[in-house]
């Protein structure tokens, strides 16, 4: 459908609205995944679509619109995150996570409430990770882009993408394995 719509170089309002409707959720999830802050995510979402409108005529393969938008979204989210908060700063939505961890120490008990805590745990691990690592995890494991596609879209070498993915995976596993409070979701004791 998208291929049919973009015969011209610039989208009309209706065409752009169609793109917006189709990818609104995806872009919001992308930018939230990177920023982990709903205020910053909203700013990044708006900026992503503004950039997308301005550069849509540069997109050759309209069938890859989703992947293209996701890479704009992650880049924009990282820029906004750096400008507003700094990459290592904890954001306002996150202050109660540690409190929740300390409430559940018995593995049996924690198993019962696992489903409620998994999201917070993963959120916490991701938040502590470098944003560049979150970015490649998102593009590779959520959107299933190839290494080559990620490299092309982010203007990186394939080697850099592989390295970041390797480190991101390790960071994820390491956090789970080394943090005693996370052993119940799969970490091993040292």
């Amino acid at each position, binding site marked *: *459908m*998208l*291929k*049919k719509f973009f015969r011209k170089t*610039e989208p*009309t*309002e*209706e065409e*752009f*609205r*169609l793109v*917006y*409707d*189709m*990818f*609104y*959720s*995806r872009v*919001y*999830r992308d930018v*939230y*995944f990177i920023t982990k802050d*709903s*205020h910053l*995510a*909203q700013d990044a*979402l*708006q900026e992503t*679509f*503004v950039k997308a*409108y*301005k550069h849509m005529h540069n997109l050759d393969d309209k069938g890859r619109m*989703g992947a293209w938008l996701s890479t704009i979204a992650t880049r924009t989210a990282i820029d906004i995150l750096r400008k507003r908060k700094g990459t290592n700063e904890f954001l306002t*939505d996150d202050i109660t996570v540690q409190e929740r961890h300390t409430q559940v120490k018995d593995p049996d008990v924690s198993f019962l409430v696992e489903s409620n805590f*998994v*999201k917070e*745990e*993963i*959120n916490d691990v*991701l938040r502590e990770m470098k944003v560049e690592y979150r970015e490649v*995890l*998102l593009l590779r*494991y*959520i959107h299933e882009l190839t290494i080559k596609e990620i490299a092309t879209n982010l203007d990186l070498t394939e080697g850099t993408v592989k390295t970041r993915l390797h480190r991101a995976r390790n960071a*994820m*596993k390491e956090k*789970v*394995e080394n943090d005693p409070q996370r052993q119940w*979701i*799969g*970490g*091993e004791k040292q």
Partner: protein
Amino acid sequence: MTNKLNNWESWLKEDYQSPAPAHLSKEENWREIKASLTNTSSTKKRLFPKKSLLAVAVFALIIFGSVFASSNQIQAFDWFVKMFVTTDGDTTQISQTTTDGESPSSSDLPDLDKITTEEIEVERTEMSFDKAQEETNFYIAKPTFNPNNYQLKYVEVVSKDSEKNQVQLYYENGQSETVVLTQTFQPNDFASAKVVDNEDTNVKIVDLDGGEARFIEFKDNSKQLIWSTPQMNWLLEGKLPEKDMIKIAESIE
């Protein structure tokens, strides 16, 4: 422990699918984006030059809902498709139209002598997703959220008078539970209506991506979620909880 460790990919996906809600609605964000683009001097001249999709369309709208006693107009998510929910005693009708007009009224009734009935030849063909995409002229979207390990069993392309404007995606899980997503391409103006019995069904408006959809729950626990996007009508059917139905709909891309 090892199995759980290997689960981090699925947890990652779950985390991705559950962001905190945005502070502005989808429509409010759209207005902000439009304002940003309009204020950009370099793009000002060429921005959004026309409204082509509907402006010149003329069609005879047969609104069955106009015979209903009370009318509660509800605007769908955008300027493109309007939904009307009309209730009359034991029945509720859900109508969709692509006009910018007001709610149905008796003055909109067409001349009954000019209404004709035509038989439409409907053909259903089962095929793979890729084949269905080849056979149709519109993009077939799929949900990314999959709460109960549903697998896409097959796709049915529905042809009406040789026009392949509808596809149905059939999902099934190990417990033989099914979810069906129907996607109908509507490039031109259209009107459609569905009538349900109030005693057996519960119809309500639900939030969908900052817009609105109609959620219908039947006595046998089956549910339908109906919504529209420009040029496309959507129907999701299944017996999942409302929350999951909405999540599936919102994950379609």
